């Protein structure tokens, strides 16, 4: 097979991989502050996409719909934190795993009842016509995914480094107890991280929906990939998820081309097993000592 096809498959796979990376980044945000992640993150992606679709159908222009969707995502993230995670964390239990799954199921049922079970198109002003770059066809929609992913990750990283609130965030991530002693409310910081994580999920939904359509089950495949990416990259490397996400996406699409579409997921899963066996903290993760 010629280089052009390999290039095409790798590029479109890598661009989809950025969506996995973005969702994985959402896991990292909450893991950093609270050592917990939202197992219902996929449902946050889906329900925020549905909400944004409703905004669009109500006549909101794209530029107003995006912040609306992000705000909704943040709110939903806070709901997860308040209703599930905080209770478990206060009791130092691992109950957040089950609670966040349950809240996700609740979102899923709610979406089925409010919006129905059908897959629907997500209108966008961004054209889906291909542009030809170096022998590879890329659509503006796919490029918009890349722009969106890098923009929000860049903004959040800047926020963490440059603002007072962001520094509090980093402080809680580094050492929760010490931060508490310095007068930083860790509860608030965890709330902030869940809100940000919700917004990130919402953006992933808004970016991916025009390509994949919106439906209650839209995120079930995405979320598994995002987990793989988060685990392979490690739960504390923002830069790592981007690289691993793009790599996994490209690997998947090359596998479906050369091995047949039924084998699409196989290399990713092998990668996951290898990573767990060789680098349990992630390829880009720091080894940590867990005090029991």
């Amino acid at each position, binding site marked *: 097979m010629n280089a052009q096809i390999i290039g095409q498959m790798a590029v479109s796979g890598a661009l989809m991989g950025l969506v996995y990376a973005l969702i994985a980044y959402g896991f990292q945000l909450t893991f950093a502050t609270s050592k917990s992640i939202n197992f219902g993150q996929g449902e946050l992606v889906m329900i925020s996409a549905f909400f944004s679709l409703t905004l669009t159908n109500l006549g909101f222009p794209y530029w107003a719909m995006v912040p609306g969707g992000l705000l909704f995502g943040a709110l939903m993230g806070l709901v997860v934190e308040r209703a599930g995670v905080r209770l478990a964390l206060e009791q130092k239990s691992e109950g957040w795993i089950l609670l966040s799954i349950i809240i996700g199921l609740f979102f899923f049922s709610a979406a089925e009842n409010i919006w129905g079970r*059908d*897959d629907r*198109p997500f209108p966008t002003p961004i054209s*889906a016509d*291909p542009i030809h770059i170096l022998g590879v*066809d890329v659509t503006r929609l796919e490029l918009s995914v890349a722009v969106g992913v890098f923009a929000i990750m860049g903004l959040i990283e800047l926020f963490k480094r440059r603002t007072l609130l962001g520094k509090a965030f980093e402080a809680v991530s580094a050492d929760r107890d010490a931060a508490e002693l310095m007068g930083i409310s860790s509860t608030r910081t965890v709330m902030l991280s869940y809100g940000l994580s919700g917004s990130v999920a919402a953006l992933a939904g808004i970016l991916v929906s025009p390509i994949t*359509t919106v439906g209650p089950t839209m995120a079930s*495949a995405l979320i598994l990939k995002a987990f793989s990416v988060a685990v392979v990259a490690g739960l504390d490397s923002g830069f790592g998820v981007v690289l691993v996400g793009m790599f996994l996406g490209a690997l998947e699409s090359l596998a479906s081309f050369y091995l047949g579409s039924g084998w699409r997921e196989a290399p990713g899963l092998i990668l996951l097993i290898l990573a767990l066996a060789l680098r349990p903290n992630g390829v880009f993760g720091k080894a940590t000592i867990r005090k029991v």
Partner: protein
Amino acid sequence: MFRQTLCGLLLVAASGAQAADTVKIALTGPFSGGSAPMGTSARDGSKLAIAEINAAGGIQVGSKKMKIEVIERDDEAKNERGALIAQELAAMSDLSGVIGTVNTGVCLAGDKHLQEKGITKIICPAAGSASMTQWSKAGVKDNSIFRFAAYDGIQAAMVVEEAINRKFTKVAVVFDSTNYGVSGRDDMLEQIKKQGNKLEVVAQEKFNIGDKDMTAQLLRAKSAGAQAILIWAIGPELAAVSNGEAKIGMKAPLIGGWTLSMSNYIDNAGKNGNGTLMPQTFIEEAITPKAKSFIDGYHKAYKVDRIPSAVAAAQGYDALYILAAAVKQAGSTDTKKIKEALEDLKEPVKGVIATWSHPYTKWDPADVTTHEAFRREQVVMGMVKDGRVVFGNDADRARLIKSATTVTPAKTSKTKKK
């Protein structure tokens, strides 16, 4: 689902007093999920016919006029739900008939319960071959299951014919991994052979339900030089194929099963769907007065400006009229007598697709077409154009106008294939 059951119960309760004076007909199908455009359209088409019949006082059964009472069940395109519903219906002692089912798997799971009790069912609009051939394979002597759909055999023949007529020589065969997709592929490959191997199959590509990214399959088809894609799958994934083509700058048109006319294909593919071809039994175009009144009636009753699946709606409408004609001829609400009347309908039934003259004959396990109403001549090629399905070939339009106004010749079942 809950609400529907509740409504059903209320209906039954409310009409309990005059239960003996109604003809009970069950409408089933997927009213939610990926096949919902077909299920709801077929149901709503049937209900439109029921409203017309009831408004005129009902069906003349023997000496009195009886109104039709509807029992609705959503099988959600799930086989296990279909089986449950069929069991429930089979347990009803006063049911006159069943119309419905979109998914072949649901037919396979449920229809045996109806057949056992001898309950008359018109399958509409499921098209998978297996839903009828299961009875010929089992060699049943007396079959109460009829079908009212352009079955896959006809469709596959037309798809291949269309590709040849459009002077394509290299095609890719693309299908989903369900029963429906795989049997569609087999039908198409068989037809290519049958029609003289004028098409070279340069690629065979498969995908799963729920797949959104078809780049790999399409790139393989493209690099093999496919000029057209012969495809067998269901709505949302079909749209992913069209959108994938646009992305990699591929221009090969899709030609495939009638599912390409479902609104969830047309809407999700948008302008990338233009030029897609599929066999249709009905095109939403007011070519005859009857078609016009049906289309207007549907739009008005359900407040839409496009029928989600025009084919399913028209078939639901005609199937109901055919069943009603059988009830009238039988002079009874007894489902077994209705079955006998269906196998020998004396009077032609004026439908929106055609005028149906003797659509069914006595069941012969060696020949499923005895219980198939559709013939090649009632099916045309439709084409997607700007979000609607129009006639693919103008000659078909003229032919359909003719067939709707003249009586279709009584069929001679022995000469048909299978």
